[in-house]
C-alpha cells in the first residue's frame, strides 16, 4: 500500500484489546469524562485549573510582554501615520469639549446645591487596583482574560473590571496572584444596564460576538441607536453608573457596542466594590477572644463583615481611590455605606 492510492496505512487486523488500541480508547474516554466533569463544574477541575494558572502566570506574563510592546509600537506607528487627520479631529473635539466643560461645571454646581438641599448621602468611594492582562483566554466557548492581580492584592470574585474606556467585565476566578475576567462579550455575561436619557432598564448579554445583545427592553421603550449604556447596579454586584457602551443596530434588533476594545486589552483596573446589602448578610465573624468575651457576658457586638474598601491589604498594593472625592479614608467609606 506504500505509495499507493490511499493516503492511509493499512491497519493490521487485531483485537482492540491490543495495548495501543486500549490506550487510544482510554484517552478518548478520558476526554469524555473530563468534559462531563467540566460541565457539572466539579471542584477538582476548578482547583486544577487554578493551580495551573498560578503556576504558569509568570511564564505567560513574560511571554506576553514582547507581544504587548509590539502592539503598542504598531498602534504608535498607526497614530503617527494618521497624525495630521488626528490633530484636526482633536482640535474640533477640543472646541466641543470646552463648551461641555462649561456646561459640566454649571451642572456640578447645581447638583451640589440640590444635594445639600436634600441632605443626600454621598456615594461610597470606589477603590481600585490596576494591573495588566497577561493571557488572552478566548475560544469558541468563552471570552476571558487573565490579569496579574489576585487575592494578595484584594481581588475577589465578582468585582467589576474597567479600563480607560469603560466596563470590561467582572472577575470570575481569583488566585493568589492572578484573576480571570469574564469579558462582557462572553456567552455567560449578563449585565443589568440603564439605557439613554430615559434610564430604561435592560440586560446586556454577551453572545461571544463583538457586540452585546440588549434584552428585556420594555415595549415601546424610547431607546435609539447612539444612546449611552451604563450599569444599573440592580444586580447588587456591579457599581451603578459604569459606562458600558453605546446602542447600535435598528429598532427591534438593538445591540450594544462596548466602549472598551475587548480584543486588545492591556491595563485594566479592578474595582473593590462590595454592596452594603451583601456585606450585611454575611454572618458575623467571631474571633476566639471575642467569642470568649461574648460568652462571659460582654455585650459587645462584632462589626458586620468588612466591605472591600476596609479590607486589610498588603502595604505594597497599588490601590488608588476613584469616585466620590469626599470619602478619602476607609472609615469614611463605611460611614457613607451605613
Amino acid at each position, binding site marked *: 500500500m506504500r505509495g499507493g492510492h490511499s493516503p492511509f*496505512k493499512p491497519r493490521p487486523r487485531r483485537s482492540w484489546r491490543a495495548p495501543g488500541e486500549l490506550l487510544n480508547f482510554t484517552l478518548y474516554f478520558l476526554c469524555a469524562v473530563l*468534559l462531563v466533569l467540566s460541565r457539572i463544574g466539579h471542584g477538582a477541575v476548578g482547583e486544577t485549573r487554578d493551580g495551573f494558572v498560578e503556576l504558569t502566570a509568570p511564564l505567560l506574563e513574560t511571554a506576553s510582554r514582547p507581544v504587548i510592546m509590539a502592539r503598542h509600537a504598531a498602534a504608535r506607528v498607526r497614530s503617527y501615520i494618521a497624525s495630521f487627520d488626528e490633530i484636526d479631529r482633536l482640535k474640533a473635539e477640543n472646541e466641543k469639549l470646552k463648551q461641555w466643560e462649561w456646561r459640566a461645571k454649571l451642572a456640578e454646581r447645581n447638583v451640589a446645591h440640590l444635594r445639600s438641599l436634600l441632605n443626600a448621602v454621598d456615594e461610597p468611594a470606589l477603590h481600585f487596583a490596576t494591573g495588566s492582562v497577561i493571557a488572552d483566554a478566548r475560544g469558541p466557548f468563552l471570552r476571558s482574560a487573565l490579569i496579574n492581580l489576585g487575592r494578595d492584592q484584594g481581588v475577589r470574585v465578582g468585582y467589576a473590571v474597567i479600563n480607560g474606556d469603560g466596563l470590561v467585565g467582572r472577575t470570575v476566578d481569583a488566585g493568589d496572584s492572578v484573576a480571570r475576567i469574564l469579558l462582557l462579550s462572553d456567552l455567560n455575561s449578563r449585565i443589568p444596564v440603564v439605557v439613554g436619557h430615559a434610564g430604561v432598564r435592560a440586560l446586556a448579554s454577551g453572545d461571544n460576538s463583538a457586540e452585546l445583545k440588549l434584552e428585556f427592553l420594555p415595549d415601546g421603550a424610547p431607546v435609539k441607536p447612539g444612546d449611552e449604556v451604563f450599569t444599573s447596579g440592580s444586580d447588587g454586584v456591579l457599581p451603578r453608573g459604569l459606562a458600558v457602551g453605546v446602542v447600535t443596530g435598528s429598532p427591534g434588533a438593538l445591540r450594544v457596542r462596548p466602549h472598551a476594545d475587548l480584543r486588545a486589552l492591556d491595563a485594566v483596573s479592578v474595582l473593590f466594590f462590595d454592596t452594603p446589602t451583601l456585606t450585611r448578610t454575611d454572618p458575623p465573624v467571631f474571633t476566639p477572644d471575642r467569642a470568649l468575651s461574648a460568652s462571659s457576658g460582654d455585650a459587645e457586638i462584632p462589626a458586620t463583615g468588612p466591605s472591600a474598601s476596609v479590607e486589610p491589604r498588603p502595604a505594597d498594593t497599588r490601590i488608588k481611590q476613584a469616585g466620590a472625592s469626599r470619602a478619602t479614608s476607609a472609615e469614611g467609606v463605611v460611614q457613607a455605606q451605613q
Partner: protein
Amino acid sequence: MNRILPALSVLVAVLATAIPWGLPADATFIPPMVVVMMIFCWRALPGTVFPLYLAFLLGLLTDLMSGGPLGFWALMALIAADIGGRARSLNDSQDRNRLWLVWAGVAAAVGALSWLLGSLYLVHWLDVWPIAFGTLVSILIFPVILRGLVLLKGGWPKPKFHRGWT
C-alpha cells in the same frame, strides 16, 4: 531529537494560544486550530515520534490555557493525531498535496465537531462563522505550517527507492 522537537514545537504553539495577540473575535478559533494542525503534521511526517498520549496531554494543556472545558481540545488533538498517524506513507510532493486534502477533511470534521460539542456543552447554538473562519484559515495556511515543520525537522526523508541510484 525526533522525539523532543515535535513536542517542544507544539508546546510553544500551545503557549502562543494564551498570549494576547489582539485578534478580532472572529479569529479566536485559529490559534488552537494551529496546535491541532501541528499535531496532525508531526504524526503524519515520517521519521518522527509523536505518541497519542502526548497529543492528548498537549490538547489538555491547551484546554487549561484557554480556560475552556477540560477535554475539548484534548479530544480534537486526539482525533487529528489518530488520523495523522494513519497517513505516514506520504513522502513526495504529490503526497504532500494529498496530505493537504486529508487535513482539509480533518479540519472540517474538527470544526463541525467543535461547533456541535460547544453548542451541546453550553446548551446554546454557537455562532458558526468564527469556527468556519478558523477552519478555513487553518486549511489555507496548512502548506506553510507543514513546510515550516519539515524545515525544523531537517527536510523530507528521501523515498526508499532512491537509495543506491546516485
